[in-house]
């Protein structure tokens, strides 16, 4: 009879240099704070920067005189493995959110990253498992996450919302189906 060596599974990100945790920067991101997002232009709290959609920032350190001296501070790179939907049509299309020094950005195929905005270090990664036969209208892309009340929210290609804990990137509660509000999610599954 064959004597088998014991094999033990790990999380794939455990094989990388990902830090694994991030500061709890979204704890105090309230609806009122997002309504007044332009007043804290050091952050980018919602998709267009503010609800009026103007993408205007009050920051003035970079201007028409010095913009030519801009150089890259860091580059974030990521390579996926395995099969995924739309292998010829995937891309970054998200507007990164920044909350007090932490950047939250989504990618193709259910990926979400928390990045140290100062140096580009990958703080944590979340991956929602997406079937490779998922129908795509246009490409395997995601237009960005939302942050509020201590959570990071991402819509997935499988029509679910995942609520991520911003300190670790782990999902909390059962994923919520598309367009359902808190009232449709069983309270026992809520942690926000």
């Amino acid at each position, binding site marked *: 009879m*064959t*004597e*088998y*060596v*014991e*094999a*033990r*599974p*790990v*999380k*794939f*990100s455990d*094989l990388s240099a990902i830090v694994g945790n991030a500061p709890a920067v979204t704890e105090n991101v309230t609806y009122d704070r997002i309504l007044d997002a332009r007043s804290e232009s050091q952050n980018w709290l919602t998709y267009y920067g503010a609800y009026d959609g103007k993408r205007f920032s009050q920051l003035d350190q970079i201007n028409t005189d010095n913009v030519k001296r801009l150089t890259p501070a860091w580059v974030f790179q990521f390579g996926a*493995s*395995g*099969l*995924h939907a739309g292998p010829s049509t995937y891309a970054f299309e998200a507007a990164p959110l920044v909350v007090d020094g932490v950047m939250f950005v989504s990618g193709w195929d259910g990926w979400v990253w928390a990045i140290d905005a100062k140096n580009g270090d990958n703080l944590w*990664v*979340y*991956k*929602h*498992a*997406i*079937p*490779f*036969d*998922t129908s795509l209208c246009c490409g395997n892309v995601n237009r960005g996450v939302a942050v509020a009340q201590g959570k990071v929210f991402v819509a997935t290609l*499988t*029509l*679910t919302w*995942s609520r991520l804990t911003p300190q670790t990137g*782990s*999902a909390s509660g059962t*994923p919520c*189906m*598309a*367009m*359902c509000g808190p009232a*449709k999610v069983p309270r026992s599954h809520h942690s926000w």
Partner: protein
Amino acid sequence: MATAAGDLSAVLSEIGLDKQNKATLGRVLGTGGIGRAEEGPDGRMRGQVRIPPDELVWDPSILVMPHGGEIDIEITNDDSNTHCAHLPSNGDNKWMWLPVYSRGTVTLDLDGPGYYWFSSNIGNDEGRGLTGAIVVLGDTPPEARLDRPDQPRP
């Protein structure tokens, strides 16, 4: 010459495409067996996958889950080469080193219907045959299909 799908296994064997180092270096993708995951009385699903000797194939290469949820898959490497298992799961992919004659169990969370890949992502095991699929049956819940209000028609 055309062949019927039912003859596939016999034709693969005849040409030498069902073993590595016969007609080619490995298995043709998408060939191999199909197996069903079992659901216990507690609702938890379980499955078994094995790498047989000298075939560079997962057995089964298609594992079917009756619905979404958590599944425990016991994976055995009976090949005389080292491989690994790289599998999708909500939160993060799972990975397991599979030395020669090794066995381990991995738990996956796959919440929706569809085809999910799994593979051995070292060397070029994936291109040589160690790419498989986990198929989750069922459909999305009704509320997931109510994502648009009625649209005005001209």
